[in-house]
């Protein structure tokens, strides 16, 4: 009997407590924001951001959730279906276009208002779909050019002459002729990105157009370079890691990569690091910095308080927080105009240390940072189409197929797979 009484009282107390807690929580709007692959390394950054935001907005409660990049989409889709999406989700640029086309994220123009002006023009252009901005631009990165001064001296190449992509290719050839070392190892796995960088279109008016004389001439340059031996023979097998290894061992004279790769040179190959200079990767006809990949925040459709979500979005991607985040990562860059001019980035411009130099060079190049990819949904079978293009591109560069023939073959396949 006693036990029963105790249980009744206990349950009542528990219920009351639960009710009180819920009532308190109900006062605040919970703003869950999802990021990809940033925990636990950046826990301190997000802790301060959340504390600061919550203190400044007593009626809102920001909650940070980090997950692996490949979980973001399935989880978001599940939460959309269940009707309880988070306030903000960390997306890359292609996803923004994909979800905007599906109507699963909302346009943010009305919430951005005059604050639109704080972001760089290119960053806004990346996340603009049919004239509407669909995401808050966040962090970004670009490739820089690190070069081995000793090899440059031997080959008689001056860094000032690397003002265009053609000049870069010519330098690679010259380096190879004079020193026997490969010039550089441009990333060949993504011909589409290469075309965009060179200012060449890929699909126009529902047709693949990358077999024009201009495209053929561009690919022919790579084929000539390959034939001359000025780029590594296994260039198509080289990714981030292999490029750093080749540069560190003196097998290539230039490294085209994100500034953080220089940290590896510093620790793994001090001798090479000591003779390393840094320059901006030249812009080409595409007028875009090489190797950009922007991150951003979107507001899923169906979130009940979009204005509050936007408030958090603007806070996280504002000058102050972007600068703090860039300082925490040391290798990424803000997408707001003001933050990139901060002394933190520019202090290294005249430094002797390649990493500090690289930071200054890359921050300056952020103006041209565009993340251009094929608009999602252009192709009905993207995996197969990109594979066919990559294979033909490789065959052309390696000299197993005439360039025109290879590009024609890929265009023919693409035209059967372009969504009507």
């Amino acid at each position, binding site marked *: 009997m006693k036990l029963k009484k105790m249980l009744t009282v206990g349950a009542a107390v528990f219920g009351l407590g639960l009710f009180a807690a819920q009532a308190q929580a109900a006062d605040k709007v919970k703003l869950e924001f999802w990021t990809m692959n940033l925990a636990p390394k950046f826990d301190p950054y997000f802790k301060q951001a959340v504390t600061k935001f919550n203190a400044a907005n007593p009626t809102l409660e920001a909650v940070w959730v980090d997950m692996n990049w490949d979980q973001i989409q*399935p989880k978001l*889709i599940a939460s*959309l*279906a269940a009707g309880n999406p988070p306030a903000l989700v960390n997306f890359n640029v292609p996803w923004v276009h994909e979800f905007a086309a*599906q109507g*699963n994220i909302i346009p943010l123009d009305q919430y951005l208002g005059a604050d639109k002006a704080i972001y760089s023009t290119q960053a806004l252009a990346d996340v603009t779909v049919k004239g509407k901005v669909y995401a808050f631009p966040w962090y970004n990165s670009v490739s820089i050019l690190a070069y081995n001064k000793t090899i440059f001296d031997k080959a008689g190449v001056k860094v000032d002459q690397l003002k265009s992509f053609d000049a870069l290719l010519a330098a690679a050839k010259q380096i190879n002729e004079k020193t026997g070392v490969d010039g550089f190892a441009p990333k060949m796995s993504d011909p589409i990105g290469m075309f965009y960088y060179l200012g060449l279109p890929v699909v126009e008016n529902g047709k693949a157009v990358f077999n024009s004389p201009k495209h053929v001439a561009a690919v022919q340059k790579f084929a000539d370079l390959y034939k001359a031996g000025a780029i590594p*023979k*296994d260039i*198509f*097998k080289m990714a981030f890691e292999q490029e750093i290894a080749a540069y560190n061992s003196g097998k290539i004279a230039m490294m085209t990569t994100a500034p953080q790769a220089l940290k590896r040179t510093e620790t793994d190959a001090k001798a090479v690091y000591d003779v390393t200079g840094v320059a901006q990767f030249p812009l080409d006809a595409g007028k875009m910095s090489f190797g950009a990949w922007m991150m951003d925040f979107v507001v899923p459709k169906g979130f009940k308080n979009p204005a509050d979500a936007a408030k958090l979005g603007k806070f996280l991607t504002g000058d102050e927080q972007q600068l703090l985040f860039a300082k925490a990562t040391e290798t990424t860059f803000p997408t707001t105009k003001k933050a990139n001019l901060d002394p933190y980035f520019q202090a290294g411009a005249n430094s002797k240390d390649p990493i500090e130099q690289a930071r200054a060079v890359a921050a300056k190049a952020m103006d041209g940072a565009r993340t251009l990819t094929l608009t999602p949904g252009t192709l009905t*079978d*993207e*995996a*197969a189409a990109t*594979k*066919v293009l*990559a*294979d033909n591109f*490789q*065959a052309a560069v*390696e000299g*197993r197929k005439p360039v025109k023939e290879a590009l024609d073959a890929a265009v023919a*396949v693409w035209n059967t797979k372009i969504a009507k």
Partner: protein
Amino acid sequence: MKNSSSYTAVAYLFLAPALILMGIFTFWPVGYNTYLAFHDYAIADGTATWNNFEHFKYIYHEDLFHSALKNSLLYLLVVPCIQLAALVIAKLVNNKLPGMTFFRATYYIPVITAISVAGVAWAFVYKYDGMLNGFLTWVSHFIGYHSGFERVEIDWIGNPDIAIYSVMVFTFWKGLGYYMVLYLAGLQAIPTEVEEAAILDGANAWDRFWKITVPMVKPTILLCTLLSTIAAMKAFQEVIVLTKGQSDTYTALFYVYDQAFRNYNFGRAAAAGLVVTFFCMILAIIQFRFFGDKK
């Protein structure tokens, strides 16, 4: 006295744990895959809409799938090689000589090595300035074929004419020990008297191998051939770690993977997977005809 029906019940009871697991992890996925192959599956809301044989029609006309399937079938070349080598090695390490355990263990090490780790190591072997070319350069200098700074520069996994064979060699190396152990078990089940009698009758080692060993391990040969055929048709991991499908090494399961996880077209991936299963079954039937017991 228990009657036969209660024996059956008990038997099923003992089978139940394994059957339940197989049901969940094998039969259900196979069934669901078959269901998906005839549907358009929308990942967003999890709905599947019937679309008849559309996916099969698509892959029937898809050149990339044809070349992928051709590569998977070509991969079957590894089966006879690996079976013969595994049987011969099993026979060799089945001797009671000192140090045999060492050899058995050595051949088995690749089996337990993670494929990603082995792949990185083999990529170094196959690089055009890697270990294999280094060794061949040394040999060619030794026999006087090359001189001075000339080097052997074969792009083992970059040249589309030979890349798939290089990947097969990797599979061969990786799987040899596994089949060796299975054959070893089969060999140890052969009574020694049979072999002794043959020796007394004057049969030489060659005859004994073909007339005694091979017929007596026939059930093991069937098992191993089946397993390695299925493994060859399913070649994917070795390709992704060594060549990422470049240089004409794109296999049928790589196509399935690309369709599912790059295109998110699970219906088409399921259809392509079903076609691979179909080929596996045909090959299994052929093998049962060849090596199975005739009743």
